[in-house]
């Protein structure tokens, strides 16, 4: 639950996939079907000639060489930059403020509440429970709104719905204590293992 751009990821991966698939199939066809080779020579040859012509026409005024190369370099650098930006977008979204408002009340000045408040109060309320192995609380900003993610790791055999109900009522108490409601996600998990696996969950 964060701001990883899911749709964008899939679109870009899909584009890359289709492109590679097309290239791969083309190579195989070129090697096996002679008719494809003929068509390829014509089509690709035409494109190559177009570009060669373009290079001829964009010569530097003073010296030998085309400035189109520099343009290509520039484009490649831009693509590199975009890829770096794409990687940087993964897993973004953590925030430290749960609630923030400018100049509430009579006196001037901002009031904000950090996620540490939720973390410390929830941990204190869930401490020393024999049925829990771990509690993690973090805040994420989704579409401009901060929300809370509570991850609870129960011991084996604990009924999740009972646990969910208890944590949920603690969250309602937290709403009252903080004074503002934020969206909350409760994740009842079994540790890092839950990511890597298939459909079977076995005990």
């Amino acid at each position, binding site marked *: 639950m964060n701001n990883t751009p899911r749709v964008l*990821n899939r679109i870009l991966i899909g584009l890359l996939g289709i492109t590679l698939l097309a290239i791969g199939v083309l190579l195989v066809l070129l090697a*096996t079907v002679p008719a494809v080779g003929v068509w390829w020579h014509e089509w690709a*040859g035409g494109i190559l000639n177009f570009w060669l012509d373009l290079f001829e026409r964009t010569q530097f005024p003073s010296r030998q060489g085309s400035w189109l190369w520099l343009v290509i*370099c520039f484009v*490649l650098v831009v693509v590199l930059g975009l890829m770096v930006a794409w990687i940087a977008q993964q897993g973004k979204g953590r925030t430290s403020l749960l609630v923030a408002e400018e100049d509430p009340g009579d006196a001037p000045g901002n009031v904000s509440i950090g996620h540490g408040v939720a973390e410390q109060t929830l941990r204190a309320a869930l401490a020393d429970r024999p049925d829990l192995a771990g509690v993690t609380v973090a805040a994420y900003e989704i579409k401009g709104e901060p*929300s809370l993610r509570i991850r609870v790791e129960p011991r084996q055999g604990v009924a999740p*719905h009972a646990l969910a109900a208890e944590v949920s009522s603690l969250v309602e108490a937290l709403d009252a204590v903080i004074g503002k409601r934020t969206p909350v996600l409760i994740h009842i998990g079994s540790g890092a293992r*839950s990511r890597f696996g298939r459909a079977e969950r076995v005990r």
Partner: protein
Amino acid sequence: MSQDTQNAGVGSGAHDADAVPGSAPLGSGAVGMDRILKRETHSSRAVVSVIAAALVMAVCAYALLETAVRATGQPPWLVDPQTAAERVVALPAGIGPLLLVVTGAVIAMVGLFFFLNAVLPGRRARHLLPDRRAAVVVDDEVIAAALARRARLAANVTQEQVMVVVSRNRVLVSVRPTSGVPLRPDAVLDAVRRELQDMGPWPMPEARIQVSTAGVVGA
């Protein structure tokens, strides 16, 4: 009484387990819960994205190197871009057909990998639970452990004799009975079903029980 592997499950009529959760069947109060839930139950493809980006970066970096070298009039590093383009256009001449096929197949495979990653939903092994205040997601492992415990108690056997497999639409309970002690699979299945009802996971899986012929001695 020897019994073959029994399937004491009742197959109910096919129900649409893929109903859109957008209409919030789970009673989550807050706005924006549906989006959170949708995100939590599907993979974000972040890892694959990083791999894809790295791949593109590697290719671009090399292309940049050769292009820059050519732009400044230096001799090419590995192969001059123009020569490379000419060679590509001249395909399939110049490269052995076997090599070409293998290269093409490999590239196509990689492309298929990425494409499938983009298109398949990538559902995570999780279920949603209804709750008034928060969005709740539960790993299937936790559900399986809770159901296994309930089955174990109902069947009066040890933990090693029970195995529960939870998938998106199905729950399979496998029990190896204690030798000499008869087992009532209906009672066990009933207990598991009732626990599932209490839990109320979405999508609600169908529970089945399987009792094996081989028992465990003296458990």
